[in-house]
C-alpha cells in the first residue's frame, strides 16, 4: 500500500480523478451517462471521444520520444491528412458511397505513413537533429495542407466519413474504438515482440545499441513512420468530427499537448523507457483539463495560468526529488 504513491502513474491518476470530481460542482449531471438516439451520451463520453486525436498523437510521440527523438510535425500531419481525405471524399460523385470513402481513407493513411517516412529519413538517414528535422514539416506541412484546401475549409457531407469521428458503433463512439484498437496494436507490437526493448535500448544508449547489433537506423525510421500513421489517423478523426478540413487550424499546437501527455505518463524526453498506458492516461488527463476549463467557466484570460498551475502541481507531485526535499520523506527505505 505504501508503495502505491511511488508508482509513476499514481499522481496522474489522482489528478484525473480530482479533475473529474471537481466538474460536479459546475455541472451536476457530469457523471450521468444516458442513451440518446441509440448511443451513449454524457460528459465522460465527450472526454473519451474528444481525447482520441490526442491519445493517438501521444501514442506515436511516445515511441519517437523513447528513441530520444521528438516529432513536432504531428499537427501539420493532422492537417495534411485531414485535408487530403476531405478533398478526396468531396470529389466523390457520391459522397455517401462507403467504398469511395474507404479508398479515400486508405490513401490518406498511406499519406500519413509517407510523411512519417519523410521525418524518419531526415532523422535517421540524413542525420538531422529530430527537433529541426520535424520542424521543417511543421512549418511546411501546414502550407501543404492549405495548398490542398486552397486556403478554404473543405466541407464534406458524407455519412460514412462522418462516422469515423462523430459516429457510433454499438453505442460507443467509433473514434474511441479506433483509438483503442491502435493503442492495443501498439501494446502488442512493442510488448509481445522485442520491438519495445530494442526501442528502449536505442533511446537510452544509441552507441551501445549499435554495438549490440541493433539496427538503430531502421528502428528510428519505423517509429517516425508510426508517429506519422498515428497523426494521420488522428487527422481523419479530427476532420471527420467536424465534417470539414481546416488546413490552417487543424491540430495546431497539438504537439505540445502530446509531449506533455507523454511526459506526464512517465516517459522521459531523454529517451529510453516508455509507457504507453502512461501516455494514454496523460492524454485523457489533458483533455479532461480542457473540458474542466470549459465546464467551470474559467475565463479565457486565466485559462493558461490555470493550466500552468495544474501542470506544475502534477510534475512536482510526480517528482521524487520534490517529495524528498519538501516533505523530508527521508530514509524509511529499509525494505
Amino acid at each position: 500500500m505504501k508503495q502505491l504513491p511511488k508508482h509513476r502513474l499514481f499522481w496522474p491518476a489522482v489528478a484525473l480523478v480530482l479533475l473529474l470530481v471537481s466538474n460536479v460542482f459546475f455541472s451536476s449531471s457530469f457523471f450521468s451517462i444516458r442513451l440518446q438516439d441509440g448511443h451513449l451520451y454524457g460528459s465522460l463520453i465527450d472526454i473519451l471521444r474528444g481525447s482520441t486525436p490526442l491519445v493517438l498523437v501521444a501514442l506515436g510521440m511516445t515511441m519517437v520520444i523513447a528513441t530520444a527523438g521528438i516529432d513536432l510535425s504531428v499537427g501539420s500531419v493532422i492537417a495534411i491528412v485531414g485535408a487530403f481525405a476531405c478533398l478526396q471524399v468531396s470529389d466523390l460523385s457520391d459522397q455517401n458511397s462507403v467504398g469511395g470513402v474507404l479508398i479515400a481513407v486508405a490513401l490518406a493513411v498511406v499519406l500519413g505513413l509517407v510523411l512519417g517516412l519523410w521525418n524518419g529519413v531526415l532523422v535517421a538517414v540524413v542525420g538531422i537533429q529530430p527537433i529541426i528535422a520535424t520542424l521543417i514539416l511543421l512549418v511546411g506541412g501546414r502550407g501543404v495542407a492549405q495548398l490542398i484546401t486552397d486556403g478554404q475549409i473543405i466541407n464534406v457531407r458524407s455519412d460514412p466519413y462522418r462516422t469515423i469521428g462523430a459516429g457510433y458503433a454499438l453505442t460507443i463512439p467509433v473514434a474511441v474504438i479506433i483509438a483503442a484498437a491502435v493503442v492495443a496494436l501498439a501494446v502488442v507490437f512493442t510488448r509481445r515482440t522485442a520491438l519495445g526493448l530494442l526501442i528502449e535500448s536505442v533511446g537510452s544508449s544509441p552507441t551501445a545499441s549499435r554495438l549490440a547489433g541493433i539496427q538503430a537506423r531502421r528502428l528510428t525510421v519505423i517509429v517516425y513512420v508510426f508517429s506519422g500513421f498515428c497523426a494521420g489517423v488522428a487527422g481523419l478523426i479530427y476532420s471527420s468530427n467536424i465534417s470539414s478540413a481546416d488546413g490552417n487550424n487543424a491540430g495546431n499546437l497539438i504537439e505540445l499537448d502530446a509531449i506533455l501527455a507523454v511526459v506526464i505518463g512517465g516517459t522521459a524526453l531523454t529517451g529510453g523507457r516508455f509507457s504507453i498506458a502512461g501516455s494514454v492516461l496523460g492524454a485523457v488527463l489533458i483533455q479532461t483539463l480542457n473540458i474542466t476549463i470549459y465546464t467551470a467557466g474559467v475565463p479565457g484570460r486565466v485559462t493558461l495560468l490555470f493550466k500552468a498551475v495544474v501542470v506544475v502541481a502534477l510534475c512536482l507531485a510526480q517528482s521524487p526529488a520534490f517529495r524528498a526535499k519538501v516533505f523530508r520523506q527521508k530514509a524509511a527505505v529499509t525494505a
Partner: protein
Amino acid sequence: MTSVTTPPAVERPRVARARRYGVSSRFVPVLATLVLFCVMYGIGIANYNGFSDTQILLNIFIDNAHLLTVAVGMTFVILSGGIDLSVGAVLALGTVLAASLLQAGWPAVPVIVVVLASGALIGLAQGAIIHFFEIQPFIATLAGLFTARGLAQLISTKAIPITNDFWTTDATERIHFAGFRLSPSAVLALVIALIAGLALAYTRFGRNVYAIGGNRQSAALMGLPVARTRVLVYTLSGLCAALGGVLYSFETPTGNSLTGQGMELDAIAAVVIGGTLLTGGSGFLAGTVLGVLVLGLIQTMITFQGTLSSWWTRIFIAGLLFLFIVLQRVATRRER
C-alpha cells in the same frame, strides 16, 4: 608472485599521439553555416532587384534584434543541455508589463528594470524547479510558457499602446553611418551577443555551461557548481527574453499578450542552424548570430519574392530551411 613488470631498458616509445580532428573541426558547422549563408545571399542578389543594397542586410538585424537577444539566452540553455520554451511568452509578458506600467505613468528606467527583473525571476524559478526538483526542462519551461503568457493575458487581453517619449523617440532613433541605418536595439543586441560569446569562451561560468552540457554527472563529479550554473543559465535566458521584449516594444511600441507566439521555435532553430547540438555541450555563439541571419534572410527573400500565396510562403520557408539544413549536414558529415 612476481612484482609488477618493469619496462625493459630500451627507450620506450611515448604514447602514440592521438589522431586529431584538426583544430577547425569544431568550427566546421559554423563555417558551413557561414558559407551557405553567403551562397544564399548571393542567390538573393542574383534574383531580386535591390537585394544587393547593404541596408537589406542591416534590416535583418533591425528586424531581428529581439530574436537575436532571445537566441543568445537560448544558446546558453541549449549548450547546457536544456531547452527553454518560455522565451516567446516571457517576451510577450515583457511587452505587456512595460506597456501597462508606462500607461500607469511610470518613467522609462524603472519600467525597464522591472521588466528585466521579472523575466529573470521567471527564468530563475524555472531553473530552480528544473534543477532542484528534477523536472524535465521541456516541461518546466512549457509550464513557464503557460504562466508567462497567462500573466500577460491577466494584465491585459487588449493590446496596450506605448506613448512614452523614450520609447517613441530615443530608443527608436536610427543610428546613421556611411549612408546606412541601424537601430539602437540592433546595436544593443549585437553587443550583447558579443559579450555573451566572450563570456562563453573566456569565463568559468561559460566553460561550466559547456561542461554541464557535455555530461552533467561528470561535471558534478568534477566538482563544478552544477546547481548554480544551471539555475543561472535559465535566469539568463529569462533575462534575455525580457530584454527581447523591451527591444521588441521599442520597434513596435505596444504591449500585446499574443506577441512572440512560436518564437521559441525560431530561437531554437536559429541556435541549431548555427551548428549547436541540442544535446548540449557543443556550439558557438557566433553560430547563433548566423542562425538568426539565415532565418532573417529567408524571410527577406520571401518578401522580395512577393508573389507567394500564404501557403506557398510556408512551403517556401520550409523548403529553404530544408535545403539549408541538409546542405549543412552534408558539409559537416563525418563518416563512422
